């Protein structure tokens, strides 16, 4: 027996496969025929009878069983790695530049209205009041837009140090109830507790900590033109996902055309001033569980600092954007955050194809793109230096 015959480099080509395919039938027959004799001879009495189940079977000569499946064997060579690095680097740089510039075009204005004590803020008074439990305190902010914000301008509220992503908080809801299932109203899920039922045992709708902690500050925007503040119309439609307001959230079936009747037998969450069906009294399409502000709130945030869309400015005189100038924001300050060192902000922002202002992505792309190209050069240098040596090793 000499060394094994050297088979061609690209084994398992179509041809050889076909060839192997033809063989086994003949070999198989012979193998099994003779194996009978072997079976008789080998296994002895008693426990040994199980052996030999395999013996006598000639293995199939297929590419699979012989581990000769045709295969692509990529090798990390200079020919692939270096171009990969340069291309990836360039692509990242290009993307980074694009992102950076489109992010730079976005206008954004943040207004903190937490009213921390001692800040001398207009809303400090309300903050103190809300801490004491009073609601309905209003304060207003005057601010300048240094330049025109092209429309549509979005108005966000941003909470910080607010843990909507806390496990116990984020499970404290009943999506069955929110999808309008009748039994969900009468018997909310246990996850909702302690906001499942009120002390008398009447089920809460909507139940759970998320719903209970619904953000209930309201904002009104006025534009100073010709010495008077004209209200800026704020559009509350379409601030939630279509799938949320149309599939995930539904009101219970109306009873005699009345949503109130449908909610009968339930009670409001303890923090709420009104029942759910009174969220938007005038508009049956925006009240109860399908109130968009409610839906937006119910889509809990991933991080402890988050912004949620409050309104859009896209109507009337302001459909093309907010002009430069002075504005006043009237805030109904209901929502206490000071107790847990939270902050509240209002943000005006324009959007582009990539959403709001987001410098992070562009910068990381730029950094990484440069790093890639740099590494590419290092690798090239190393390769040129060591290639010769390797060639010699090989030979």
């Amino acid at each position, binding site marked *: *027996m*000499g*060394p*094994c015959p050297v088979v061609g480099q690209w084994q398992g080509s179509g041809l050889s496969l076909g060839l192997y395919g033809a063989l086994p039938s003949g070999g198989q027959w012979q193998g099994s025929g003779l194996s009978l004799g*072997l079976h008789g001879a080998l296994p*002895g*009495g*008693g*426990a*040994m009878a*199980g052996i030999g189940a395999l*013996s006598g079977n*000639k*293995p*199939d000569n297929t590419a699979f*069983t*012989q*581990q000769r*499946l*045709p295969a692509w*064997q*990529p090798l990390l060579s200079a020919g692939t790695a270096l171009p990969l*690095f340069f291309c*990836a680097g360039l692509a990242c740089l290009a993307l980074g530049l694009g992102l950076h510039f489109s992010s730079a075009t976005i206008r954004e204005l943040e207004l903190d209205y937490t009213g921390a004590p001692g800040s001398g803020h207009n809303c400090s008074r309300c903050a103190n009041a809300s801490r004491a439990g009073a609601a309905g305190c209003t304060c207003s902010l005057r601010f300048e837009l240094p330049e025109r914000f092209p429309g549509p301008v979005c108005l966000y509220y941003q909470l910080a140090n607010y*843990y909507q*992503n*806390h*496990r*116990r*908080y*984020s499970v404290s809801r009943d*999506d069955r109830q929110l*999808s309008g299932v009748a039994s969900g109203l009468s018997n909310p899920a246990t996850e909702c507790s302690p906001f499942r039922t009120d002390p008398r045992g009447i089920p809460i709708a909507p139940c759970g*900590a998320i719903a209970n902690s619904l953000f209930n500050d309201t904002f009104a925007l006025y534009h100073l033109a010709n010495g008077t503040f004209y209200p800026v119309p704020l559009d509350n439609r*379409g601030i*939630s*996902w279509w*799938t949320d307001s149309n*599939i995930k959230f539904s009101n219970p079936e109306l009873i005699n055309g009345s949503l109130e009747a449908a909610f009968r037998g339930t009670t409001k969450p303890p923090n709420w001033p009104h029942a759910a069906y009174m969220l938007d009294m005038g508009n049956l399409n925006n009240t109860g569980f399908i109130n968009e502000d409610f839906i*937006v709130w119910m*889509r*809990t945030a*991933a*991080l402890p600092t*988050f*912004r949620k869309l409050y309104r859009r400015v896209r109507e009337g005189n302001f459909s093309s954007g907010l002009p430069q100038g002075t504005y006043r924001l009237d805030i109904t300050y209901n929502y206490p955050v000071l*107790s847990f*060192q939270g902050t509240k902000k209002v943000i005006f922002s324009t*959007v582009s*194809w990539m*959403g*709001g202002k987001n410098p*992070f*992505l562009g910068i*990381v*792309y730029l950094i*990484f793109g440069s790093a*890639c190209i740099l*590494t590419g050069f290092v690798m090239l240098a190393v390769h040129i230096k060591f290639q010769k040596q390797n060639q010699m090793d090989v*030979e």
Partner: protein
Amino acid sequence: MCRARRSPADPGSVAEEERRVKANAREYNEKFQYASNCIQTSKYNIITFLPVNLFEQFQEVANTYFLFLLILQLIPQISSLSWFTTIVPLVLVLTITAVKDATDDYFRHKSDNQVNNRQSQVLINGTLQQEQWMNVRVGDIIKLENNHFVAADLLLLSSSEPHGLCYIETAELDGETNMKVRQAIPVTSELGDISKLAQFDGEVICEPPNNKLDKFSGTLYWKENKYQLSNQNMLLRGCMLRNTEWCFGLVVFAGPDTKLMQNSGRTKFKRTSIDRLMNTLVLWIFGFLVCMGVILAIGNAIWEHEVGACFQIYLPWDTAVDSAFFSGFLSFWSYIIILNTVVPISLYVSVEVIRLGHSYFINWDKKMYCAQRQTPAEARTTTLNEELGQVEYIFSDKTGTLTQNIMIFSKCSINGRSYGDVLDLLGHKAELGERTEPVDFSFNSLADPRFRFWDASLLQAVQLGNPHVHEFFRLLSLCHTVMSEERNEGELYYKAQSPDEGALVTAARNFSFVFRSRTPKTITVQELGRAVTYQLLAILDFNNVRKRMSVIVRSPEGRIRLYCKGADTILLERLHPAHHELLNVTTDHLNEYAGEGLRTLVLAYKDLEDGYYEEWADQLLRASTASEGREDRLARLYEEVERDMTLLGATAIEDKLQQGVPETIAILTLANIKIWVLTGDKQETAVNIGYSCKMLTDDMTEVFIVTGHTVLEVREELRKAREKMMDSSRSMGNGFSCQEKLISSMSASRLTSVLEAIAGEYALVINGHSLAHALEADMELEFLETACACKAVICCRVTPLQKAQVVELVKKYKKAVTLAIGDGANDVSMIKTAHIGVGISGQEGIQAVLASDYSFSQFKFLQRLLLVHGRWSYLRMCKFLCYFFYKNFAFTMVHFWFGFFCGFSAQTVYDQYFITLYNIVYTSLPVLAMGVFDQDVTEQRSMEYPKLYEPGQLNLLFNKREFFICIAQGIYTSVLMFFIPYGVFADATRDDGTQLADYQSFAVTVATSLVIVVSVQIGLDTGFWTAINHFFIWGSLAVYFAILFAMHSDGLFQMFPNQFRFVGNAQNTLAQPTVWLTIILTTVVCIMPVVAFRFLKLDLKPELSDTVRYTQLVRKKQRAQHRCMRRVGRAGSRRSGYAFSHQEGFGELIMSGKNMQLSSLALSSFAARSSSSWIETLRKKKGGDSTASSPSGGADKPLKV
């Protein structure tokens, strides 16, 4: 299937102290409640399967651990994940294992059934009835026929042969294929017919069931007489009746009580080093897990104290949780649940699946299939495959493993002329049939057609009537202990005790000196077509001291002649000094033959005068009847007559090596594997084989031979050997003191041997009795160090136990993977001891195979098993483990980072379905495909570059360092996986201005990048992209997106609103360019550094396999390393050993006529006088194990000639 049997463990029953069995009395025997002959190796039946199997499975620590997790998840305050994230994988694992167990058990049931339903003839109520084996009871008398398996342990009562003899083959029991003789005690041997047997009512009182195969003691009480019974009277289950028409036996032990079943103990469970490493790592990971849990729990306590307590206006604490501390405690368990995916349950299952795949590849390998024997290679254990890639020491048996145990008459020297060389070819080669025609023996109708000889001149010499040649073959046809059987006219079968003898007699047969038949007093030889009957006067039998055997025959002409054959060293001294010249020529020939690795024998004869013979025979008779010093007196007489003989010539027998043995050994040596041969054979034979299979070469610096008989001698010899090696290396500038080294190494657990780095090639040959001393506690290190410094080690004359001890020694001190390969029952202990046991499914039964982990039928397949399958398995397993730990760390650690941003509340980053499916669906198949199919270099290259095997031995591909690199990579990935989306999502909004950074979108983004990153990573790791790999990798990605969209679909939400909360998420999130930009960025940042590292490593420090791959790629033809295996035949410097490997005692057996069919009535009187003393001799010589038990016949009687 079997009815409940009395078990010794039953509280009610006392352990059996002695067994009483009465023949033909079922009622009497019934009251002892002996086990029936039904055997049950299966573990379950349909009803008990589920509970028993589950109970067994939960004894696994891993399964219990997951059960514990499951229970934790049922506590609402702790449950951070739904119960199904644990139960789905757990059920999957339990089901797969259960199905496997059920299949195994089904086959066991089937084989049990097959065995239990075998038919046997049982004597019931005076008639023979067909009964199934399972219905045979203790006390039954059953009839066995030729070539049938013995159904239970029987007391032999009578047989078709004279004197109640019967022949059995015990291959199933001890692996020996030669026949053994059993004899009924005289009183029962007359119970030939059924009517007498039916009245037989003897009672046997004997030992309780045990597992000693060679021992039995009992007494038969019959007709108020006592008869001692020994093992010689027993037929054990598993034996096969041979050459005996029928026999009757009394069932003494049945079913589970039989010695065979008592011996089938569970084999020790072997674990691979990777297994052990894996278990250590898993423990470390658990430690790490607990650390993370503690960190996060502390974080939780602080957070709840600082923030959570104030945040209670929106999120009040649970009623049961009244303090931050308690909350932290609960969150510890919650995090243990979430983070447990660092060690997923699928790890163990996947490892098993991969190993199973590799085992199938071994079973399927056509190149390890032996066409002659119709046996494929078989991986009998599926758990050791990757260890095949790490073997450092091979312990090999010789006979049947390196050699075929087939002896071929190859050459001979007659009267100073050497025959047998093939003239056209220079060297002697095994396969030369193509170019030269073998000698045509067709003129001789009695010739054995399988016999091949290539030198026609020998036949011419026979036909021309060369008297020396005639005498030569006459000797071969007369001087032996072979038995012949002639079933039809001219169809001769020889039964030889040793293959050497068979080869010699067959050679004579083909050269027209056909040994035809023998009686105790005659030998009939067909000489050149003429039947000549010689009178056999004496057989001077073989033994280890004499190393020769002789016969004294009287030819038809009345001439008395002694023919002798024996070892050259012994016989050449006993020749008549007159033939000095012939002696020199023959010695030259002998050296030449020995140089070729042939086993040689010298033949001589001597004419005896009538008177001298008579006198001598008289003395012999007296000596053999002497009560004291019989052996010595006989030996002296033999010595006296066997001298001044005339040299006839010499024979050379080829102990045929298995195919490809030298090449295999050469390649394995190149792969840095050390091969030790452990053989029971004699030193000369072993050394000879060492040379012929190129383990020993003449260019070796020195071959040390240790043959000391005392401790001191052995120590001295070992010391000398070491000193010589040290001297040579000292001259190379390596000045260590041997003694110093030894003292320091005594304390070190692992030898950091200086000696191993020694220059020059050495070999060590050590004898069994020296080895016994060398293996003693105070010398074993010295021995080991000496042996390990040698390139080749041969231990000869070792017992099976010593084989195991040697293996154990290396295992203990070298921390190296050992492999033992053998084919016989004597290798079983070594096969079981070594990390990997390989059985050669050869001629010597299947004991070794049964004990082995792998079996195949040719030694040469070992190189393929190790260099191809083992290497691949190791590579695949290592790659698999690296990737597996990487992917799970990348997956799980994200939760840890997220903990810092969610108030340490054990909130998961991903959807719970993703967590459930990640390990079992999204990422399992690609890595399995890699683990099963990956190849770095092709099989041809694996064999061509044995050095490729080294990374496995050095454990380079997966060790603690590699593990930490994988973990680091996983953690690095997890950091990016969390913080890049974090950075992006912090302020981002969607393109329509709505919120982007909601929890669900974040979850989908991170999960999608994770799946893509690990898929790209497996793509990078996969070195061998078959269609299956493509299918699995692309398929996994496709399945991920399919399941993602399905889970987030309206339909599922409307059915289970609380279970599928992510409704609409996939389409909303994945429609955002920002999200895709994030995913791409994460992928690129995770992967590119890996690519850079690999590229630089490839450029700066390429592994051999990389280089081979590279050259394969550029298709450079090259011949490195793989040097030409064939070396020039060495000059003859070694003397061949005495070729007889057979037992003493058969001469006596023949002379007694006991083993012959009683065709000639003339012998009957002779036979009656004689006794079974030959059996005694036979057994004594076999090892003196059972000399204590006396045979049936009582006292020894003299041998009459």
